[in-house]
């Protein structure tokens, strides 16, 4: 397993404006900034703070990390997979018990987010570099972003068509308008939370793998 990270051209030396401009050349920050514009239009202060905060984190994080990784196949082992799945199912059960709109649920999501951030943020500590080549693009990778962009356009058109930006419209249903009723019942919420936690764990493993 190639375990090295490749510094982008001069990334370690780049400071200030150079780091920011370098990030604009990658998809993550521009996408977050576009989302920020949409959220400002809707006026959700918490979402604006979260997305803006993560955009700021990306800028702060860029100089201390060596840049892109060299391998698209981390090969990080998944120890105790059944036990992890069972533990996450238990955690999902705990998270599904309170009313979804309660402060307790918010608190549990905040704790989960803090743990995720700690795990992901800590992974960039080594900042290693090597002369390895960048990973080759997988075949027809653009098919997935094409579907994603199409969904985003549909979502954007429904949000713009709503009579009031902050009120869901049955005539112009967004994705959350369609999915949220299915999550009102605790059993379906438990299954959804379990799948979501499994996704969290999968992503953390992917990120931590680059540092292993």
């Amino acid at each position, binding site marked *: 397993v190639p375990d090295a990270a490749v510094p982008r051209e001069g990334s370690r030396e780049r400071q200030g404006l150079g780091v920011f401009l370098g990030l604009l050349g990658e998809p993550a920050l521009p996408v977050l900034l576009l989302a920020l514009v949409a959220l400002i239009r809707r006026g959700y202060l918490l979402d604006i703070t979260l997305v803006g905060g993560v955009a700021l984190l990306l800028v702060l994080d860029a100089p201390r990390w060596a840049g892109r990784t060299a391998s698209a196949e981390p090969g990080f082992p998944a120890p105790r997979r059944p036990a992890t799945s069972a533990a996450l199912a238990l955690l999902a059960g705990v998270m599904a018990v309170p009313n979804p709109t309660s402060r307790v649920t918010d608190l549990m999501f905040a704790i989960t987010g803090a743990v995720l951030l700690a795990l992901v943020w800590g992974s960039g500590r080594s900042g290693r570099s090597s002369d390895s080549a960048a990973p080759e693009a997988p075949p027809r990778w653009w098919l997935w972003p094409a579907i994603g962009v199409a969904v985003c356009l549909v979502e954007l058109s429904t949000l713009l068509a709503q009579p009031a930006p902050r009120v869901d419209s*049955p005539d112009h249903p967004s994705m959350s308008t369609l999915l949220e009723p299915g999550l009102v019942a605790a059993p379906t919420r438990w299954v959804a939370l379990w799948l979501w936690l499994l996704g*969290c764990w999968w992503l953390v493993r992917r990120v931590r793998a680059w540092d292993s």
Partner: protein
Amino acid sequence: MSTAAAVTVTAYLTAAVACVALQLWARRHPDRATTLGGLVTWAMRRRATQLAVVFVWWWFGWHLVTQR
């Protein structure tokens, strides 16, 4: 359900079916297309993408479950 709502729902369902079909096709023909996991893994070679993808996934769950 209004016509506009039906069109929107159809669009989302079409996208969902396309995702499932593409995933199955990519698993069957890994030399012709990549799976969603393969794409995410490849995209995560960049540090900014790692942080952004994890945040978006967290936000997606929080937004849907808490209905905020």
